[in-house]
């Protein structure tokens, strides 16, 4: 989604978030990512000023101190930025892809099921339903590579093993990664 994204053309406006809205956001985030409960106050401190940056295609970036934390398109679930996932890797659901898929993900491709079921890859034992936002790790690497949304339940991916499994939202080196907010 952020393959071609630069601050000049795609950003329209930047406004502060009201503290009531900020509170609502925090609770929605905890609802979506239950493990985040422990660290939510570190990510979004009570006194912190959250800003929402509106971009093309109904995309909103939520940032604090000039660093993007989450983004949201339309009213879809929130997606953490890759940098945030690097800082708090265990608090987001994760999957692991095969080494061969790394190259394609880094050029913006989505992830097909075989990349998640082959030898080097790992899917969680419990089922993640379709629509869950997951952090994508790679075989042999410690830090996350991308963040995406499941298009199929993980059980389905294991069973069917065909077609697209994860829609990649943001990946290492994309427009969001290189975005500099003054």
């Amino acid at each position: 989604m952020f393959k071609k994204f630069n601050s000049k053309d795609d950003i329209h406006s930047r406004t502060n978030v009201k503290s009531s809205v900020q509170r609502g956001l925090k609770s929605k985030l905890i609802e979506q990512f239950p493990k985040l409960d422990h660290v939510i106050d570190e990510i979004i401190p009570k006194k912190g000023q959250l800003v929402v940056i509106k971009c093309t295609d109904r995309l909103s970036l939520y940032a604090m101190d000039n660093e993007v934390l989450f983004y949201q398109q339309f009213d879809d679930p929130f997606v953490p930025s890759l940098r945030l996932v690097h800082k708090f890797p265990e608090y987001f659901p994760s999957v692991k892809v095969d080494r061969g898929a790394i190259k394609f993900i880094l050029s913006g491709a989505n992830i097909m099921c075989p990349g998640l079921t082959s030898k080097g890859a790992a899917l969680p034992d419990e089922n993640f339903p379709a629509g869950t936002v997951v952090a994508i790790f790679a075989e042999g690497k410690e830090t996350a590579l991308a963040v995406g949304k499941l298009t199929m339940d993980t059980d389905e991916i294991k069973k069917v093993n065909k077609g697209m499994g994860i829609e990649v939202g943001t990946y290492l080196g994309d427009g969001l990664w290189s975005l500099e907010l003054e």
Partner: protein
Amino acid sequence: MAEEGSKSLSVIYCGVCTFPPEYCEFGGTLQKCKDWLKDEHPSVFEQLYSEDALAKAAEGLSLEKQEKIEREIQKLQAKEANRAEKELQKKLASKVVVKRVERSKRKHVIVVSGLEVFGIDPKKLAKTFASKFATGASVTKNVEGKDEIVIQGDVGDEVEEYVSTLLEEKGLDSVKVERTEDKPKKKSQS
């Protein structure tokens, strides 16, 4: 709260390609990345590129797969190097044009164009000009769709000086700053 410290992990990012060091091989600047890592974070360098680390990583892969990966990395690097070269050439070949345009009989404006390639923010630069020369400055788009900075008054000399120093600071001092007038008589200085 029971714990004092923060729960966040601090990740090291490569100074050359901005990726975490383990992904440097996909960035196309592996050699430079390795050199940087050796200087800045020797312990991580040891972890990733030492003899045993490489052997362990190569364990699962057959010989031809290893070679394939090697070749791919080389190709990526060559492509990146080419791209960087071309961009640099473009930058050096382009010039900054400082044009003096007549607004009315006694009044002139200075139009500065061709600054886009250098990654300079035209709005910020216009503001700097405005405060520096105590006059109005704005950014407009010209016929070709390129950004231009229009400065009121006949401040061409100062502008040329300022722009040359600005380019020098960025390291692009071989770029020409061309002075022209909007009349048939042209004055070119570099």
